[in-house]
């Protein structure tokens, strides 16, 4: 198998390399790729959509249809991980472990017995040492700022590098950081599985629904200028606003899917304490 792999890899490489003889050299401003479509995007974006970040404009407007499916791909991946791995285990009767939050002492509770309801104890699965105090505190302090930055990246995608995908990933990372620095149960308490799994399609619905709304106004799918009467602005600004709405949808979908996939993969589908 190794030799076959080597032969296939080399054959493909030679085929691809031989074609580069006809390619423009690296960074050539006169290459077809730079002279056919891209001048239109660079010169007309401001007129057409009033968005200075051309990448955002092309992503969410000129090729917005692609991006809608891109969001759908992410959602599909979340759903796929869910259906492949998630196991709904019924609680087996047996000993349970609890940990006293302040002292870190582990308590074993015999079958059938119950602890008095109190916030001082938290449920754990294995006899592991509690996470380091420094790491926990630093992450606690950092998470709000990370989330704020994520929101900024989504909102400022029109004017600077950023947008729904990047911001969504940063927001998702903040919750994943919580899950890593403490444990999965704590993170799931902040973001329940059901909420997460429902918000994920809601994000995509915001995107596709905005497009479908344009059909209802008699325009083509995803033609945001149809939203002008609804938003009380002129058609060009409506495109800019439409892009923002869509980016928010992308942000929600990406954030929730990242958390969903992490939770499922790290706990093997059981949603217990995770890594």
């Amino acid at each position, binding site marked *: *198998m*190794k030799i*076959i*792999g*080597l032969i*296939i*890899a*080399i054959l*493909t*490489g030679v085929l*691809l*390399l031989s074609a*580069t*003889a006809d*390619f423009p*050299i*690296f*960074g*050539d*401003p006169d*290459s077809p*790729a*730079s002279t056919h*479509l*891209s*001048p239109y*995007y*660079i*010169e007309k974006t*401001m*007129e057409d959509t*009033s968005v*200075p*970040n*051309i*990448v955002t404009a*092309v*992503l969410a407007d000129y*090729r917005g249809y*692609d*991006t809608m499916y*891109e969001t759908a*791909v*992410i959602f*599909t*991946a*979340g759903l*796929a*991980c869910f259906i*492949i*791995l998630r196991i709904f285990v019924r609680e087996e009767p047996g000993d349970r472990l609890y940990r006293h939050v302040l002292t870190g002492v582990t308590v074993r509770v015999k079958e059938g017995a119950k602890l008095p309801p109190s916030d001082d104890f938290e449920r754990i699965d294995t006899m592991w040492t509690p996470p380091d105090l420094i790491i926990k505190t630093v992450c606690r302090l950092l998470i709000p700022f990370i989330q704020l930055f994520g929101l900024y990246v989504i909102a400022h995608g029109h004017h*600077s*590098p950023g947008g729904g*995908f990047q911001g969504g990933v940063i927001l998702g990372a903040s919750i994943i950081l919580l899950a890593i620095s403490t444990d999965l149960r704590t993170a799931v308490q902040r973001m329940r599985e059901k909420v997460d799994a429902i918000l994920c399609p809601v994000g995509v619905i915001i995107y596709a629904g905005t497009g479908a709304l344009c059909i209802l106004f008699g325009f083509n799918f995803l033609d945001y200028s149809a939203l002008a009467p609804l938003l009380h602005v002129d058609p*060009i600004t409506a495109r800019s606003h439409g892009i923002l709405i869509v980016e928010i949808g992308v942000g929600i979908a990406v954030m929730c899917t990242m958390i969903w*996939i992490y939770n*499922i*993969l790290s706990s*093997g*589908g059981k949603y217990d304490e995770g890594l």
Partner: protein
Amino acid sequence: MGDLLQIIVAKYNYWIYITLMMIGLYAMIGKNNLVKKIVGMSIFQTAIILFYVSIGVKKGATIPILEHGHGEHGHSAAALIVHAVDYVNPLPHVLMLTAIVVGVATLGVALALAIKVHNRFNTLEEDEILAQIREK
């Protein structure tokens, strides 16, 4: 020899991406461990992303975000004259955003499947798994 060197230097971006791609492809076909194959898959996809992004490069151009003053965005900004040569090609960047997302999605599903395989066979070495299947 000098000619060849010149070609390689002028088009080094393609050489880099093809080398990376070959490494990834070899790992996907030749490796025995299922997770190593997944790693190969990621390398392969990353190589393609590098290739696309390198298409968009333009000498002497800057990132594709237009300069604009604060009070004047909207209509008056359309009056600004923009030269295409000053900005790099935005299209490959857009396409690769999509490809990155697809790569992440595939990676997630592949890892989920690998975990499921590991739960069933307790190993990720392909030959050991096949031996277990044959034993039955």
